[in-house]
């Protein structure tokens, strides 16, 4: 059994609830957001109880100062605290220093937000970074390398050693959540796919699961298996791309070319099976919009996996490559738990979590999912997790196809209500909380896995690393700025 439970709190209980939950072993902070309901701000806090196969959604009306400073007991909540302040003007108690996230400097009160603007904007995140002595701040971005997303990285360094790092992301904020308000489900799906295109299937499946729960419809099992195949193909090409990026960042041109061959083969496979290289437009409300070509999958996937295996064997045998990966960009298991990390990054740091297994949905209720876990938390562990996941994804895709794939949709009637949807995207748990009013969106909270995992990037980058390790660490996280800034 998997599911969600709802919990209504009154403001005085919030602090004790948070303390109790944060101190309960096996409880993971998953999300934290606001929504305006009948002119009143309501705060929601999502906990994942992975061992109990349950998401617990606590909500309370925020009046006056809002809520106690959560991040003091659950450090993972800091980004969301900043976000709620920026979007709704409510802060976790007086005097708490918060960072600016997506509101560009200079665009003050009139900037479009989800709620009311705060009385005073946050200062720039520079504030807390005291640069002195031999250290200086090396500005990198927002325009970065070839084919890289825009983002500003402030690297505080003494020349070689990295002392600190921070990210500015407002250059990519498209106001996705605000745009979704008032939209119909079909149009919202189009936007959510493009919020973070590299996790299009993961994010949009989470969205559709929420919508379908509200409307009380269940897609046909064979159609759900097609969705599963799409999700596994998405993971496969993303991990291949990450391996190519790892080779590139370590200067291994031959390995990079080999990995890009695998990547291109997988993208062509996506196009052959589902008609789109990046699987856009495959999922539809109530099912899928296109029939999957199972023959193309069965004939083309195994030889591509063979190519991948040869590449991986060669990479593990290349000392100059392995040396750069080992002990690089470490995220300790304690840190991973503290920051609520998800996906391959969490699993490489000893967190045995995967929503396909812990909160099994759709076809995953029928098939067992093997979850690879590594303990060292370095780039090597992340690469190793990705390789193991690719094997598992290929197996799952073929198994699902073997059980029979269907296409088509069941009608999703315009409904009213709210629900939480989740999915295991290539970047980990993707959460979508949706509130519908007669089939139109009142509020949709979009929380891709990227949002959680960027939280650990600066820690990973700081841990005993030098300047040139940053691209390697970034490749091993394989996140998107689009998903972070939304």
């Amino acid at each position, binding site marked *: 059994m998997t599911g969600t439970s709802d919990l209504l709190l009154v403001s005085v209980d919030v602090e004790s609830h948070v303390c109790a939950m944060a101190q309960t072993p096996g409880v993971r902070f998953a999300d934290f957001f606001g929504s305006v309901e009948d002119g009143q701000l309501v705060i929601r806090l999502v906990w994942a109880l992975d061992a109990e196969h349950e998401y617990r959604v606590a909500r309370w009306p925020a009046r006056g100062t809002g809520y106690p400073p959560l991040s003091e007991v659950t450090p993972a909540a800091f980004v969301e605290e900043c976000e709620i302040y920026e979007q709704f003007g409510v802060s976790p108690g007086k005097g708490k220093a918060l960072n600016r996230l997506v509101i560009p400097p200079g665009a003050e009160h009139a900037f479009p937000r989800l709620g009311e603007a705060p009385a005073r904007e946050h200062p720039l995140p520079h504030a807390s970074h005291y640069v002195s002595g031999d250290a200086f701040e090396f500005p990198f971005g927002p325009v970065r390398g*070839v084919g890289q997303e825009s983002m500003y990285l402030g690297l505080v360094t003494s020349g070689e050693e990295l002392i600190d790092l921070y990210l500015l992301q407002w250059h990519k904020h498209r106001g996705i959540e605000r745009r979704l308000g008032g939209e119909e489900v079909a149009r919202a799906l189009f936007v959510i796919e493009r919020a973070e295109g590299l996790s299009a299937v993961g994010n949009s499946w989470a969205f559709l699961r929420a919508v379908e729960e509200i409307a009380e419809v269940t897609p046909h099992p064979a159609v759900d298996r097609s969705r599963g195949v799409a999700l596994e193909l998405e993971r496969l090409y993303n991990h291949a791309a990450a391996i190519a990026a790892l080779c590139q960042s370590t200067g291994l041109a031959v390995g990079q070319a080999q990995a890009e061959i695998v990547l291109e083969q997988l993208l062509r496979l996506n*196009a052959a099976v589902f008609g789109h290289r990046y699987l856009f437009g495959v999922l539809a409300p109530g099912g899928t919009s296109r029939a999957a070509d199972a023959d193309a999958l069965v004939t083309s996937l195994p030889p591509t996996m063979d190519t991948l295996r040869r590449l991986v064997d060669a990479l593990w045998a290349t000392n100059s490559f392995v040396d750069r990966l080992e002990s690089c960009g470490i995220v300790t298991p304690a840190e991973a738990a503290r920051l609520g990390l998800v996906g391959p990054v969490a699993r490489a740091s000893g967190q045995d979590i995967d929503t396909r297994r812990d909160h099994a949905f759709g076809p995953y209720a029928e098939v067992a999912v093997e979850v690879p876990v590594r303990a060292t938390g370095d780039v090597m562990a992340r690469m190793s997790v990705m390789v193991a996941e690719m094997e598992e994804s290929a197996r799952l895709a073929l198994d699902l196809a073997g059980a029979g794939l269907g296409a088509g949709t069941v009608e999703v009637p315009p409904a009213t209500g709210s629900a939480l949807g989740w999915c295991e995207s290539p970047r980990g748990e993707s959460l979508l909380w949706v509130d519908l009013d007669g089939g139109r969106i009142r509020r949709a909270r979009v929380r891709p896995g990227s949002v959680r995992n960027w939280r650990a990037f600066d820690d990973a980058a700081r841990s005993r690393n030098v300047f040139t390790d940053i691209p390697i660490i970034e490749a091993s996280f394989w996140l998107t700025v689009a998903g972070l800034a939304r």
Partner: protein
Amino acid sequence: MIPDRHEERLSAKLRDATHRLFGRSLHVRTVDTGSCAVCESEIRLLTAPHYDLHRLGLFFTPSPRHADLLLVTGPAIRAFDRALEKTYDAMPEPKLVVAVGTCPMGGIYQEDEFVHGQLERVLPIDVFVPGCPPSPLALIQGLLVAVGRLAEKVGAEGFTTLDEQEEAP
């Protein structure tokens, strides 16, 4: 899938055009004005073995000052205006802008407080490559069209020869 012969012909045309105009080197800079990260993925694949842009005499450059052509993705986020302007201004004349994908055509996001929607509002565009995302092959075709446009631009530039410069007061 497009037959290989078509790709071959396309590649040969592009190679000839770049050789004629740039003596084997046209340099390309990329910039993202709010993409979903997928157009970037296709752009990165241009240098992968299946497409290998280098064999056509086209190269990516990290510096706008060396760039002849700007590949732009995304719906032109307003908060990115200054960075985009600086990148464009840093490029030497004659220069080209190729808009990549549906985003800069205004097909994903309409103009609003966050985005310009159409890149054309902030940059002069020489070639649009449609698609969400455009495939690497479509991008190569777009680059070919752009190189043709550059020929027109070079023709209109009115070069001064050394002699003329010496004569000037």
